[in-house]
């Protein structure tokens, strides 16, 4: 009896293993409910419902300094002010004056135009009182031969990497602080190239290991030889790019990025047949550049697109997720962004506003500033190409 029960249990266990393979479908003959129909439609942005707004972020959020020497890229220089250094070191409870023997200022090249050689980086000493109200003209006046700390040649073979500048001996006098400086070192960076229109990116304070560093080495008068050698290292207190005043972009265009960093808001009117019951398979946002997008050769940047939680114009609340992005290169033609998941948030019983916000992925940190046509342009208004499946009755008989 037990043997039979065991056999039965084994037989049941074996029979319960189910492999789920498939029968070939021969649609529409075998497919109940028929085959889904797929349609395509194009929506143009709501006339006047697309604009650019700025003031969302500041230069302090930059991860790079785009330095350029004019031409298509424009003039672009950078100012870095380090944290106060002081001139003494505390060992135990006692303060010792530091006898400085060397200073290192390190900047990091992140990316450069490799099609042109003989690039140079000029570093200038600037007043420690300098701040972001500094104009291009004022900075240009300060970048004199007398204020130049050093000019370094960037090897043609170098695509990126750190450039530590060591100052010793008589050069240390270039780092003497005036009382007004309060031991704050400020420097200016300028790219020099044999022809205009050349650019390079250097690390800013938000770039992690590529951030500029100011090191002061020296000795103090203590008996313990292990403590005689001291280092004062200071990070960036403030850094910002300085450019000539940009040519204003007309409100009839959509600026993304730039100086100041702008973001575009584009509204669409989703028809009822899409809003209610269609299944959106793919939605592609098409943006037409009004003018060539410039950057250094090999450059690229990112455009981020978000849906809106609430549409309050410039103060709209973006939805962090879902989001979409695309990478663009200099000279890009029509930009296409896949925004299917975003457009799907416009559907359903509680739809979100039918609007998209386009933001530069590297605000303040890129030469590439796309300027797109709007609904006020003669052509090339933002478009949304939607591929969808209308609802179909799936009774299934």
């Amino acid at each position, binding site marked *: *009896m037990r043997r039979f029960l065991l056999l039965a249990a084994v037989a049941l266990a074996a029979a*319960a293993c189910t492999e789920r393979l498939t*029968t*070939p*479908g021969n649609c529409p003959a075998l497919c109940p409910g028929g085959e889904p129909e797929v349609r395509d439609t194009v929506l143009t942005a709501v006339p006047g419902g697309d604009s650019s707004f700025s003031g969302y972020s500041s230069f302090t959020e930059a991860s790079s300094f785009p330095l350029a020497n004019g031409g298509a890229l424009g003039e672009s220089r950078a100012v870095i002010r380090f944290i106060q250094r002081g001139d003494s070191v505390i060992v135990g409870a006692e303060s010792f004056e530091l006898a400085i023997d060397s200073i290192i200022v390190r900047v990091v090249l992140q990316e450069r135009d490799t099609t042109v050689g003989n690039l140079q980086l000029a570093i200038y000493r600037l007043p420690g009182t300098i701040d972001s109200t500094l104009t291009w003209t004022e900075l240009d006046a300060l970048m004199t031969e007398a204020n130049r700390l050093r000019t370094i040649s960037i090897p043609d073979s170098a695509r990126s990497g750190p450039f530590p500048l060591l100052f010793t001996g008589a050069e240390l006098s270039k780092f003497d602080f005036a009382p007004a400086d309060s031991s704050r070192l400020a420097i200016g960076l300028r790219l020099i190239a044999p022809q205009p229109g050349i650019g390079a990116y250097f690390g800013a304070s938000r770039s992690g290991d590529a951030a500029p560093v100011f090191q002061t080495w020296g000795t103090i008068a203590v008996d313990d030889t292990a403590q005689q050698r001291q280092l004062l290292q200071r990070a960036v207190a403030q850094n910002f790019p300085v450019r000539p005043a940009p040519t204003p972009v007309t409100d009839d265009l959509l600026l993304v990025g730039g100086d100041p960093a702008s973001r575009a808001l584009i509204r669409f009117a989703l028809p009822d047949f899409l809003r209610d019951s269609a299944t959106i398979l793919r939605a592609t946002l098409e943006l037409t550049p009004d003018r060539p997008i410039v950057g250094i050769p090999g450059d690229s940047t990112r455009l981020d697109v978000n849906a809106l939680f609430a549409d309050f114009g410039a103060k709209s609340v973006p939805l962090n997720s879902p989001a979409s992005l695309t990478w663009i290169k200099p000279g890009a033609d029509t930009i296409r962004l896949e925004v299917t998941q975003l457009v799907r948030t416009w559907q359903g019983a509680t739809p979100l506003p039918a609007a998209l916000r386009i933001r530069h992925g590297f605000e303040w940190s890129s030469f590439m500033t796309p300027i797109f046509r709007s609904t006020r342009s003669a052509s090339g208004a933002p478009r949304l190409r939607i591929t969808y499946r209308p609802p179909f009755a*799936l009774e299934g008989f």
Partner: protein
Amino acid sequence: MRTASVLLLAALLGGASLVGAQSSQFGSRGLGLPGRGLSVDALGTEGATGLFSSGSSLNPAALGLLNSSLTSFSTIQEWRTSENPAGSGSTREQRFPMIAIAGPIPRSNFSVGVNYSTYANRDFLLVSEGTAAPRGEPIAVTDSVGSTGGLSDFQVALAYNLRDKVYLGVGVHLLTGSNRVFSNRAWADSTYLPTRQSAELTYLGTGVSAGVVVRLSPALAIAGMARYDGALDVERDSAATGSIDLPATLAGGVRWQPSPRVAFAGHVAARTWSRADDGIVALGGVAARNTIEVAAGLEWYRNLRRPEQLPLRVGIRRSELPFLLVQGSQPRELGVSIGTGLRFARGIGGLDLALERIRRTQGDDYTESAWQFSLGVSLRGVLSN
């Protein structure tokens, strides 16, 4: 013994919750592939003895043949190869098509039974590959259309034994169930999001049946059954969407045992599935047609003292299937079977086995060949002990 039986039952029911299922392509249209309401011993003769089988739900009068309680479960494992104009594929399916509890009412000539069986099985998945060009560029797509669930037949039956000669029975049927039907499309280009549309279809209907078994002589018995099922109300996603008239069934059978070692049986059943045609077509189906089923088989008893111990059962059946896959000829099914069984624990426990070779066709385009293995587990006399 009782503990072991309970463990066996628990293993059976536990397994039932784990398995998936996928039915024949012939179950993709209409209400699906009709169930047969047969116990495994009747499947061993390809249904030829179904009208005399107390464990089957076919004939309520057969309950009167019971002399002790019967609890039975059956499981079916099917391996099939399907072919249609889109290609061929292999599928495997596990079902539990029948649970029955029945027995005589003590100190009376009545027997009562309840059983739960498959009325129509619509558990399928069809997968096809092709291309679509939503923006003018061809993109490979994979479509899958499927359904899970089916229609079940819950029967309560009462039988009366008139002097061990004539057995009369009546049954009432509650037909209920649901299908989750879905259609999916996946794109080779990931910029297109996959789509899924689904619907839940729920069914509710009733039916009545009556049957008779007559022992004309110790060697000869005949049986008959009539059943009428009413309209099946169909709801889609909780909204009434239509109704389907279910068929009337008329069946007759004979069992002849010319010698103690062998018994022959056969039956014919006709079902008026064309009553369902209007409803099926109105709901987007193709068509429903009347069906006739003919089955013949024999049982050969090796042990005359214990004839239920490893008998040999064989049978053949030819039947029509009610729901057309495409317009044209009516689907047909041909099955041959072999089976056996044994009793153990002084006849309390029972196992029945049946192996069927089934071929289903509609014209030349849609064919299917299947091996179907059925296992029945039964307990006799447990409820009355």
